[in-house]
């Protein structure tokens, strides 16, 4: 049971970083990025491809972060010419493009087979010790990401982003370069997502194009919406809850006697119902975005 729980914990932490990244884009700034999985994939593939050529993972993370950051900034600037709905569709198309490149550039990305035998984490340990060390690593990464997200959200930059979400013209009239602010938040979020992708590739020791399907993005959207759109803590709560639900539905068969494939179908139904429920009944999520009270007078 411990191994299993550690496994769930590791997955939850990976998703929490992903959710923090998406929350900065969608929740705080109102940028509907339907292509989030592409940033995660860039991180994962950078680490995997460089590792397959014998390059140290630290370089892989750095390269992945740079590529993702640049991609994020460019996509953020694209919002200049496209209205928000069209931009959302464009991000979906771009993510599909990344997946198709991964699928078809065999020589480079391993094609449909993907890249396996990616260097693992904590290879000097084994069993529960290894899982514990891995969990500690991702938990530390999560804490760092959380602090970064909070600092950004609670400072002036966060105020500018929320204002851009609510009334971009007002933001522009108050000296704020709306295009640059969006590009920078996209770049920062992309780097966060690429780190979580690189870690994931090392944990599973494998990356393939089937992990870049749009469903992965929608799963993270579910986490952010359920947790509380716009709330940093909410993103982590949502990730934890949905990961537990998503994998925990395996245990349904221990209580109800149904066949394996029916249980598997229930998992998807549960997620769909939970997301719809929140969208209809409690759009603000579990931990709603708060209006911060004024600093006290000095």
């Amino acid at each position: 049971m411990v191994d299993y729980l550690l496994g769930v914990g590791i997955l939850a932490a990976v998703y929490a970083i992903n959710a923090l990244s998406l929350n900065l884009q969608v929740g705080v700034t109102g940028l509907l990025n339907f292509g989030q999985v592409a940033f995660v994939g860039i991180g994962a593939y950078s680490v995997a491809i460089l590792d397959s050529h014998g390059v140290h993972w630290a370089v892989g993370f750095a390269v992945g972060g740079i590529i993702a950051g640049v991609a994020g900034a460019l996509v953020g600037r694209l919002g200049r010419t496209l209205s928000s709905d069209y931009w959302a569709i464009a991000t979906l198309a771009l993510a599909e493009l990344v997946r198709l490149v991964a699928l078809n550039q065999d020589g480079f990305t391993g094609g449909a087979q993907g890249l396996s035998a990616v260097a693992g984490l904590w290879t000097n340990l084994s069993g529960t010790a290894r899982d514990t060390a891995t969990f500690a690593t991702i938990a530390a990464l999560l804490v760092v990401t959380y602090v970064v997200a909070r600092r950004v959200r609670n400072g002036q930059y966060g105020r500018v982003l929320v204002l851009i979400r609510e009334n971009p013209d007002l933001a522009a009239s108050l000296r704020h370069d709306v295009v640059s602010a969006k590009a920078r938040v996209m770049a920062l979020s992309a780097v966060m997502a690429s780190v979580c992708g690189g870690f994931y590739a090392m944990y599973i020791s494998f990356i393939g194009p089937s992990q870049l399907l749009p469903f992965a993005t929608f799963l993270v959207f579910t986490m952010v919406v359920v947790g509380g759109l716009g709330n940093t803590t909410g993103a982590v709560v949502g990730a934890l809850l949905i990961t537990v639900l998503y994998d925990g539905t395996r245990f349904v068969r221990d209580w109800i006697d149904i066949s394996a494939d029916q249980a598997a179908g229930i998992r998807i139904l549960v997620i769909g119902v939970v997301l719809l429920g929140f969208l209809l009944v409690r759009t603000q999520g579990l931990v709603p975005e708060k209006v911060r009270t004024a600093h006290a007078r000095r």
Partner: protein
Amino acid sequence: MLVVDAIKKHYAGVAALDGASIEVEPGESVGLVGPNGSGKSTLLNVASGFEQPDEGKVRLLGNDVTGKEPWDVAKLGLVRTFQHAHLPTKMSVMDLMLVGGQLARGETIRHSLFSWSRVRDEEAAATDKAWSILDRIKLDKLASHPGGNLSGGQQKLLSLGMALMGDPKILLLDEPTAGVNPSLRVQLAEHLRTLQAEGVTVLTVEHDMRFISDVCDRVYVLDRGRMIASCAPSELSDHPEVLEAYLGRSGSKAVASSAAKKENS
């Protein structure tokens, strides 16, 4: 201070502005009036960078700002307000004041993450400034309220306060009294006169002629994309075509009565 020079702007063949020009000297309080559809909002948008003209130039403090991004124009000292404030409900009055301020370090990611103590000092200074402006416009008791929950008039006041956080050189106000109750209108007029005395240049687009006469030294009249008059508010009654055609009977009455008041006092 601000020169708007022969601006032309069309939308689908219809000329919204057809060679409109205005000049505002430093320290002046100028009004811009005209009937609906005369192009006042378009002119304001062009002057502040929210729209690009087809022809003509805009100069601010001698710099050519034609076609610049609205935030770049704002950085040069021109802040405009909006006819409908639409303040967010997810931001408090204090947060909105702060976002109007110059918190250069806090706006960058690098400093937000690595220079936390200097960012905090910056915030503290901005907060002090925000409190003093809130006191001045008497919204201090509402500092923690969501901005979008304030009444229409209060939101207009707050918009002014937010603009002041950036120490603007020139304010462009888009129908500041629209939807505002009479007592608040009086307060607004006082604030604008005080600001003018402090050296801020003001350009006000308005329909309310009494407000214009209270606040402005000079008025431009815009009709169908062109200036048809430029004079002191009290002199508008000397242009009968202006009065009758563009201000309607209630407006001409207001002007006539204030002109009469001036003669009697």
